[in-house]
């Protein structure tokens, strides 16, 4: 009789216990340390597609007039359109293409700040990829997180996506000039915001005329 030796001994386990989302949170903390070390105020601008993130950054830069003391990381899937638009305001701009990715992550920001000369920079804006879902799960290490929506997305943006607003330090309702045409009640949206995040500043803006933009500058502590 032949004894067939069990092959089980050739099976082995590799224990990894690796949390892939925790890695991003860890990198975000490292980014934050770097910003603090260099005395840079970092602001993550998140929000829906086309809600006016780039327009608002441009409008804020115009008002601040800080030139190259402001840096902007422009996240975009593939194009450099936003980076070029922002560059016209005199800030240092670096483009980060995420390719297929629906959000920026802390590692992309880490690489961008390594490539960027941050000497003399006081404020860093990061324009995240237009998306109300994923960026919420991927903190970048910014001190403040702004979520920009606009009336053109309709009346239910906040209650449909409470998660990202829970994490926000400032909520901006842009394109307020179009509220009437869109039949959107901005007060209801403000009520929804207060329900999700009771203490958050809710600012109504028109990024093209600049209305409300100085309020954003104030709550972000950008007045020098």
């Amino acid at each position, binding site marked *: 009789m032949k004894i067939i030796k069990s*092959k089980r001994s*050739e*099976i*082995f*386990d*590799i*224990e*990894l*216990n*690796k*949390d*892939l*989302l*925790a890695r991003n949170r860890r990198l975000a903390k490292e980014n934050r340390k770097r910003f603090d070390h260099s005395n840079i105020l970092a602001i993550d601008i998140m929000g829906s597609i086309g809600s006016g993130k780039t327009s608002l950054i441009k409008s804020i830069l115009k008002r601040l007039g800080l030139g190259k003391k402001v840096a902007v990381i422009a996240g975009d899937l593939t194009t450099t359109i936003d980076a070029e638009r922002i560059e016209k305001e005199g800030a240092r701009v670096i483009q980060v293409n995420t390719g*297929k*990715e*629906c*959000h920026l992550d802390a590692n992309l920001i880490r690489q961008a700040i390594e490539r960027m000369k941050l000497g003399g920079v006081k404020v860093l804006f990061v324009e995240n990829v237009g*998306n109300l*879902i*994923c960026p*919420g*799960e991927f903190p970048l290490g910014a001190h403040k997180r702004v979520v920009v929506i606009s009336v053109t997305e309709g009346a239910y943006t906040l209650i*449909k*996506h*409470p*998660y990202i607003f*829970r994490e926000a330090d400032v909520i901006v309702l842009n394109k307020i000039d179009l509220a009437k045409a869109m039949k959107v009640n901005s007060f209801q949206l403000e009520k929804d915001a207060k*329900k*999700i*995040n*009771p203490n958050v500043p809710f600012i109504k803006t028109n990024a093209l005329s600049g209305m409300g933009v100085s309020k954003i500058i104030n709550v972000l502590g950008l007045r020098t």
Partner: protein
Amino acid sequence: MHEFSVSSEIVKNVLDATQKNKGGKVLSIQLEIGELTFLNVEQVTFWIIELFKGSVAEGAEVKIKTINARIHCKVCGYKGGIRSGQKNSLRHLALCSCPKCNSFQFKTERGQECVLRRIKAVK
């Protein structure tokens, strides 16, 4: 929402770890995904199986355990799970608020993980 990128990273980690250890063929992998992540378990499974194709992990079994959330409400002090319902669906997460007082102001103590626990391989 970002199942593809997370799955790609899992696959990369599995293949790297297998190569660094004794090599061989991957039989199964074990993952744990928190209830409060934006990751849909079925989609993650689908992508991992797809991405494994043509590698030493082709055909490996993908086992995923859901980790129940634990929250701490800042308004009423509630500590515990969220409303049970559709696990791991975006809708469920979107409606996620304190089951006692409905507040959205809570700290997440558990449920945000995506852990690659272990790999079973054969030489």
